């Protein structure tokens, strides 16, 4: 199947869908129909299985499977490149899409288009993928395939006749889909003669074999024993093994143009390879790297502190473990006067953050206390320099500050027509600018916004769910950094600024946000012997203030002989409580108080 056959027989595609619309079920069905997985060793939701498998000494991650499908009297090689399991990660989706020529856009016949469907379709179009719309779950009594096909036509401008109607559950229509994959998706361009250029779209560390890279060859070929070069780092390695996942690892001698497979080449550390990077032949290198895809940037930041059952070294170990197979997550020690020792963590987006949290708990059983997420900003200084900052305290002095730019996203919200008013009001409060509305049938509306990421990272989704009675779905995608009328609010406790509490906000909401923060602080900070003023300030100008009253009385009325032992116990406990306080100047604040103010669980 390799070699001189060209690329005519190859189809590289992925499946994108809103969560629960049946992506994993469909993938299983495809594997089954093409015989890649026999019924006997079929495992439910093969592609969804995140657990690392062990076979012939390599850990495999089912990030791509190669199937064979017979049509028009010949065998076609179908490479299904997985987009991640349970949640759509844009960066991973686009990473997969970049390696494909086509995408199956799966929509639930009963649910219709959802926000993620829209976001994913945009990504597929952006990465020049041919789309095959798939209306799934037609076996459901509530299925309305025609209506959904109409929605697809309306929202994406794809003719309704192009839809494949199927049931991933019963298998009905799956053959037609496989036929369409062969007939309607383009084969990869045949560039076998050109210098080798292969895109790494996934990689993971294998404890015995080093780093395993999943690649898509765009030009030339990879051959066992040849010396390859990673184009961005310039490092060279010798290929020791090539193979396909079918879905069991099947070694091959060469990986031809247009094909998808794994590469093992004595790469020791995961950090040495970047997903999106191009592999070329060391002897005959390509002139320039593949365009790859939009490299994801860390956009959302949050501080993690050890929780109840956890200490600092344990949390560090847990983070280290996570970075082994997620290079886009980062953490660095962060010591705050207010909160003690913790880590500042960077994520690609909100979903990424949630996954990391979940994995932390599941894989390492650590408890964490986490601050509300913030975003990264671009800062233009008066000398013309542009820098990226991920914390308000990193802002340069006001005298040198020319401009603050914030990340802007394209936000899709899908909701019901009854709740549209509430949703639009929320969006307006969060500085979102409406780009378009699309009515999907009589009851549903798609709203598209240009939105500041900072406004939606915190609490937006929960509010949206509330307003829409759980119905609305949302998704977003980064567009650009844009200048805004942004200011830094300093929070002063007893006249001293507290770094961990400062924030960057839009001027129009500065006063409100400042006041909210002070109110939460007022409720959380215990009293002192003296009154404690709380202030919110922008560049020295006070915009809001609150006061914490002095101590309530705290003195035992009677202490005679009989009470000594009991009283000493009580006093010792009180002393322990005092020791847990963090001092801000003369003000002692229990760490828990800060946490309650900064904790993302704490809604204002």
């Amino acid at each position, binding site marked *: 199947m390799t070699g001189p056959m060209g690329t005519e027989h190859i189809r590289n595609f992925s499946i994108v869908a809103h969560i629960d619309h049946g992506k994993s079920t469909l993938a299983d069905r495809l594997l089954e129909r093409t015989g890649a997985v026999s019924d006997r060793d079929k495992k439910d939701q093969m592609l969804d299985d995140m657990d690392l498998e062990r076979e012939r000494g390599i850990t495999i991650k089912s990030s791509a499977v190669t199937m064979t499908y017979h049509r028009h009297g010949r065998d076609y090689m179908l490479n299904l490149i997985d987009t991640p399991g349970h949640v759509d990660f844009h960066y991973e989706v686009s990473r997969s899409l970049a390696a494909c020529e086509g995408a199956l856009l799966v929509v639930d016949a009963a649910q219709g288009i959802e926000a993620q469907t829209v976001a994913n379709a945009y990504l597929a179009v952006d990465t020049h993928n041919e789309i095959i719309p798939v209306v799934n779950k037609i076996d459901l009594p509530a299925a309305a395939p025609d209506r959904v096909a109409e929605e697809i036509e309306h929202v994406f401008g794809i003719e309704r006749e192009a839809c494949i109607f199927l049931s991933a559950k019963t298998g009905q229509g799956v053959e037609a889909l496989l036929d369409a994959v062969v007939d309607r998706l383009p084969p990869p361009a045949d560039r076998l003669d050109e210098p080798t250029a292969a895109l790494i779209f996934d990689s993971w560390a294998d404890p015995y074999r080093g780093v395993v890279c999943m690649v898509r060859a765009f030009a030339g070929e990879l051959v066992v024993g040849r010396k390859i070069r990673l184009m961005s780092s310039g490092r060279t390695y010798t290929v020791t093994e090539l193979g396909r996942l079918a879905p069991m690892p099947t070694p091959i001698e060469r990986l031809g143009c247009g094909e998808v497979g794994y590469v093992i080449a004595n790469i020791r550390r995961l950090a040495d390879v970047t997903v999106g990077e191009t592999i070329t032949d060391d002897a005959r290198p390509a002139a320039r790297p593949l365009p790859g895809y939009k490299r994801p940037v860390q956009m959302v930041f949050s501080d993690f502190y050890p929780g109840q059952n956890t200490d600092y070294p344990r949390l560090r170990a847990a983070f280290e473990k996570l970075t082994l197979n997620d290079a886009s997550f980062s953490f660095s020690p962060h010591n705050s006067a207010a909160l003690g020792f913790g880590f500042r963590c960077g994520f690609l987006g909100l979903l990424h953050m949630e996954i990391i949290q979940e994995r932390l708990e599941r894989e390492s059983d650590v408890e964490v206390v986490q601050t509300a997420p913030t975003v990264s900003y671009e800062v233009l200084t008066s000398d013309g320099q542009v820098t990226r900052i991920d914390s308000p305290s990193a802002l340069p002095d006001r005298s040198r500050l020319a401009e603050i730019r914030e990340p802007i996203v394209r936000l899709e919200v899908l909701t019901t027509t009854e709740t549209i008013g509430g949703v639009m009001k929320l969006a307006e409060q969060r500085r979102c600018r409406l780009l378009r509305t699309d009515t999907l049938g009589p009851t549903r509306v798609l709203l598209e916004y240009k939105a500041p990421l900072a406004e939606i990272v915190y609490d937006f989704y929960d509010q949206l769910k509330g307003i829409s009675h759980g119905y609305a779905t949302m998704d977003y995608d980064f567009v650009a950094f844009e200048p805004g009328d942004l200011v830094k609010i300093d929070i002063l406790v007893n006249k001293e600024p507290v770094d961990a509490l400062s924030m960057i906000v839009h001027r129009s909401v500065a006063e409100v946000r400042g006041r909210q923060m002070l109110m939460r602080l007022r409720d959380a900070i215990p009293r002192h*012997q003296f009154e404690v003023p709380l202030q919110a300030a922008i560049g020295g100008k006070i915009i809001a203030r609150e006061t914490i*009253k002095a*101590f*309530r*009385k*705290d*003195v*035992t*009325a*009677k*202490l*005679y*002989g*009989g*009470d*000594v*032992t009991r*009283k*000493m116990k009580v*006093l*010792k406990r*009180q*002393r322990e409580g*005092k020791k847990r306080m963090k001092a801000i100047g*003369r003000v002692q604040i229990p760490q828990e108080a800060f946490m309650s103010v900064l904790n993302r669980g704490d809604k204002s």
Partner: protein
Amino acid sequence: MTPQPAVAMYVHVPFCRGKCRYCAFVSEPVTPARAETVVAALIHEACQRAQPDTVETLYIGGGCPTVLPETDLLRFVTVLAESHPHVTEFTVEAHPAQVSGPLLRRLREAGVNRLSIGAQSFVPGELQRLGRAHTTADVAHSVYAACRAGFGNLSLDLIAAVPGSTLGDFEHSLRCAIDLAPRHVSVYALSYEAGTELTRQRDAGLIEPVDEETDRAMTFAAIEILAAAGFEQYEISNFARPGFECRHNLTYWANRPWLGIGPSAASWDGVRRTTNVADVEEYLRRIAADQEPWNEVVSPDPIEIACETAVLNLRRRGGIDLAEYQRATGFDAMELFAEAIAEHVQAGFLACRDGRVVLTTAAVPVADRILCDFAAL
């Protein structure tokens, strides 16, 4: 370390006529037969453990000692007085509605030289809310009767921050107390003890505790008004005309050894703190069987003793007398608590002067926040 002889003896009388709503002390209603049995047991324990050569103060409290039948009380007082020849201060707690002129005279004759009268308040509504079974007139009458009986050393107890009380109410009580010309006044801010009726009422929302500002203002009002009348605050809750400080209680704050007799009473001999069983029945059984009456024994280590001593000393406005402290504990308090002292001196809550470390007046309402830093190292 060896136990030291007690310099004070306290006797707990586990009886009351009714239970006051704020009280968490061990007490039960009295019957003549019961009184006789219990007094016999108290006398037995007191005699067993007596340290006649060293005890200088006696104090009968409770409960309410004056609820005992007169004969029992007098018998008891007499035995105690006779077996302690060196006693210079002998206090009995008295309920304003339970003392008659003749009883007081007999107590005086039997050797009692100090009375502590539970006045609590001079606002009738407050007495009612506290569940006190006496009137403000009873207080006045008992004070006059005590004077006529020859008691020159009288103490009145007052309770501050009674629910529903205003600063004006409390000042009124203070003035009334002063008008009765006692030598000593104790002012206790009401505390809501677990298991008391008042706590239950508060938790049920039936009464509302006095607000914080008023509570604090009452603390300072007591200090000022009593000072103006010649009463010096010598301990957080205690005020006296010069020379009339309660010597018995000073023993506790000096952390010197004392004996506690009766159910739930605690003792300290410089090595062990023992606490007698609280259950009266069990107490009687143990005394009858000649067993040790305590069921709790704690032996603090030298550091713990040093901490206890510091905490107790600081309750006195005279604070820690550094020389005395060094003698008693073997430690230099300035060194032992250097950090806490420095911090609180800087904050204006402690002062070091004349070889002493003392609480400042500003520290009084929040004393526990300072004391807790002396509770452990």
